[in-house]
C-alpha cells in the first residue's frame, strides 16, 4: 500500500486520529520496508534538528561543569566512523551499538570544542530523542551526526529513561547530575573524530 511521507510523519509525531493510527501501525508491523522508511524519516529529522541547533561559532555555547569525560574513539560502547554523505551539507559521522539497550533510554549528544565537552542536544525537552526512535540496521541502532565547525570530536551518551534533565535550571546545574550519573553508573557512551 502506498503511504505518504506526510502520513508517516504524522504517525511519528503521534498526531493521527485513532483509525489512521490503527491502520498505519498494522501496516508498519507487516511491511519492513515501511518500518525502515519511518526510521529513516525519524533519523533525517534528528540530523536536521542537530544541524539546526545553535553553535558556539554563532556566539552561543552551553556551559558545562568541567571534567566531563567520554571514552576515546574506539573504546566506548558506542562505536563510530564516517557515515555516507547522502547530500548532507556537513560531513556526517555515525555511532552504532547493539540494539540491546532499553528503547526508552534517550540520547545525549555532545561536541568537544577547545577540549571541553558541550551539550548539543537535547537543548529543550521536546528535542529529546529516544533510542527506540533511531533506525535499526542489522541489529544495530544507528545515530548519525554532523559536527559543528569548531568541534574536533562528537559523542553520545545513552541516558536511562528514569533520568530527566531539570529544564528549569541553568545549564551547569542542569547537566551536573547527568555527568555524575554517567561517571558513577557507566552509561553506554562513545565518541568519534569529527570530519
Amino acid at each position, binding site marked *: *500500500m502506498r503511504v505518504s511521507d506526510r502520513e508517516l510523519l504524522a504517525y511519528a*509525531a503521534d*498526531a493521527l486520529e485513532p*483509525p489512521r493510527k*490503527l491502520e498505519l501501525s498494522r*501496516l508498519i508491523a*507487516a511491511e519492513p520496508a515501511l518500518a525502515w522508511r519511518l526510521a529513516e524519516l525519524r533519523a533525517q529529522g534528528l540530523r536536521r534538528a542537530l544541524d539546526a541547533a545553535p553553535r558556539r561559532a554563532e556566539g552561543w555555547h552551553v556551559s558545562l561543569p568541567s571534567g566531563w569525560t567520554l571514552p576515546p574513539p574506539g573504546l566506548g560502547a558506542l562505536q563510530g566512523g564516517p557515515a555516507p554523505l547522502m547530500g548532507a551539507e556537513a560531513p556526517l559521522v555515525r555511532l552504532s551499538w547493539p540494539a540491546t539497550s532499553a528503547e526508552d533510554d534517550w540520547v545525549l549528544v555532545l561536541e568537544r570544542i577547545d577540549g571541553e565537552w558541550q551539550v548539543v542536544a537535547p537543548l529543550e*525537552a*521536546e528535542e529529546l530523542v529516544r533510542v527506540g526512535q533511531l533506525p535499526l540496521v542489522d541489529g544495530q541502532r544507528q545515530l548519525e551526526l554532523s559536527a559543528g565547525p569548531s568541534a574536533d570530536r562528537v559523542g553520545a551518551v545513552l541516558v536511562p529513561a528514569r533520568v530527566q534533565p531539570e529544564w528549569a535550571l541553568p545549564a551547569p546545574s542542569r547537566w551536573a547530575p547527568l555527568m555524575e550519573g554517567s561517571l558513577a553508573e557507566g552509561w553506554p557512551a562513545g565518541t568519534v573524530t569529527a570530519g
Partner: protein
Amino acid sequence: LVGTVFAHRRQARAQRARRAASEPETLAELLCGWRFCRDPALTSLVWEVLRSTPLRPSPLAQALSFAPLDSAPDGADLTEVQHRVRLAERWGEQAPELPASPLDARAWALDALGWLGEETEEVERGAWLRADWDPSPEDAERAAMWRRLPDGGFWSDRGRWTHGLMGDVVSVFRQVIESRQLPSEVARRAIADLRDVLPYKLAVGGKAAGGLVQIGARVLETGPAGPLVELLDALPEGGRRAAGHCLSRRGHWPDTLSQLFPRAAPSERALRCVDWLLPASGESLLDLHVVLRLLERWGEQDAGDPGTDWAVVVQNRGRSRGRLRALLCDGPSPGWMGRFLSWPALAHRTRAATRRWAWEWAWEELALDFSFDAGRPVGVPCRQDGEGPVPLEGEEIEILEVWVLRVILRGRLAHLRRWVDEGSTGDHDATWGRLLVEIPDALRDAGSGRYGRVRAHLVSELSSVLQAHRPLLAALAALPEGRSAMAQFRALTEPHWHAAVPVIASGLPSVRRFAAEAWALGTDTVSAEET
C-alpha cells in the same frame, strides 16, 4: 485481521452478496456494518438506488470479491482494506476473469458495500472506542483547568496551560519543519515565534473559538459514544439547525437529501435533515450519505479500487465531523466541555487532542511562511448565512394548527395530506389555493415566501395535530341544525381560534359534514387513508 480470518470472511460475504443480489430481503444482514440498516426504509432506498445504477466493476474488482484465492492467506495482521489492496497489487493485470452480467455487477456492489460497512464499523468507529488512554496523576489538575475554562479561566491558568501543552505543540511543529528541510535559521525563528504566540493562540482564534476550545472539541471526540455521536450530543439546537442548513447546500449532501426527502423543497430538506442530526440517528444519516456517494461514483466510472473506495468513506466522515466540530466551536458557549470532565485519563486525551490540533495548525502555518496570526483559527470555520430556516415554534405552531382546522372544515384534508406528502395536490383546486395563501407571512420561509417551514413541521406533526382536533371535530359533527347552530359553532371554536386565521362565518352544513368525515377517519387512518 489475520489472513485466514480475512479469507473466511471474504468467502462468506461473497456468498451472502450473491444471494442478496436476487433476494433483497437478505440485504440488511449483508450491510449490517452500516447503521442505516436498522431502518428498513433506508435499506430499501439503498436497494432502489443500487438497482438503478449502471455498475461497471473492473475485472480486478470482480476478482477481489469472488475469485478463489490463489495462494495461502497473508499471515499479516491487517485491516480488510489493506488485505484487499495487497491482493489487488499481487494480482494486478493478471486477475482471474469472471462473468460480468448485470446481476454479477450488482452482487459485486453488494459485496463491496458489505466489506466497506464492516470496515467502517471496525476501524472508523471501533478504533476510537478501543483507543488506550493512560491515567496519570495530572488528570485531576487537567480536569480542574478545563472546568475553569468556560468561565474565562484561561488567563488565570495561562501558565499551566502553556506549560502543559507547549512540549507537544513544539514537538509537532518540529516534525513538520524538519520534514520540509527548511534552513536552520527559519526553523529557529519559527519555533521561537511559536513559543511567543501559543498562549494567545490558545486563548483566541479570530471570529472562531480559541485554540483551547478547538482542542476541547477534539477531546470530546474521544468520548465513549464515538466522535460523531459525542459531537451531535453536545451540539445545541441552533448548531443542529446550522448543520442541517450547511449539509443541505454543501458538496454532495444536496443529492443525498433529495434522495432521502424526494418530495421536499430544498429549504424544507434542511429542516427535515435537522431531525436526523441527533445522537441516535446521525451515524445512520452519514452512513447513508457515504453509501449513496459510493454508488454514484460506481455509476460514473470503472468501479472497484478498494483503496479509493475506502478513501471515500474516510474523507466523507472526516469532512462531516470537521464541520460539526467547527459549528460546536463557533457556538455561543463551550459549556459542553463539562461532558468530559469526569472521563478517565483526561491528561492523555488532552495531549493527544493537542497534537492533532497542532499538526493541522503547523501545516497551515507552513503554507503561510509561519506568519503566526493568533486570530486565524485552525481548520476551516463553518461560514454561512445564519443558521438557515428556523423551525416553527411557539405561537407559530398554534396558528398553523388553527389553519389545519380551517382546512379540514373546508373539506380539504385530502389535499392537505397530498401537499404534505408529495409537495403538490395534483390538481388546481381553487379552494385549496385560497386556503394556502391564508397561511400568514410569519409562517413562511424568510425571503422566498415559500412554505418549507410549514411543510417540514406538518411532515412530522400532522398526525398529532389531527389527533388533538378529534374532540372538537366530534363536537362540530354533532352540531344541531337551525338558527342556534352558528352560535354553538362559535362557542366551540372561539376558545381555540387564532386571529391570524380567517374565521368561518358561513356554510355550516358543509362544516358539519366535513368535521364528521374527518372524525370518522380515525386517528390511525387519518394519515394514510387519503394518500
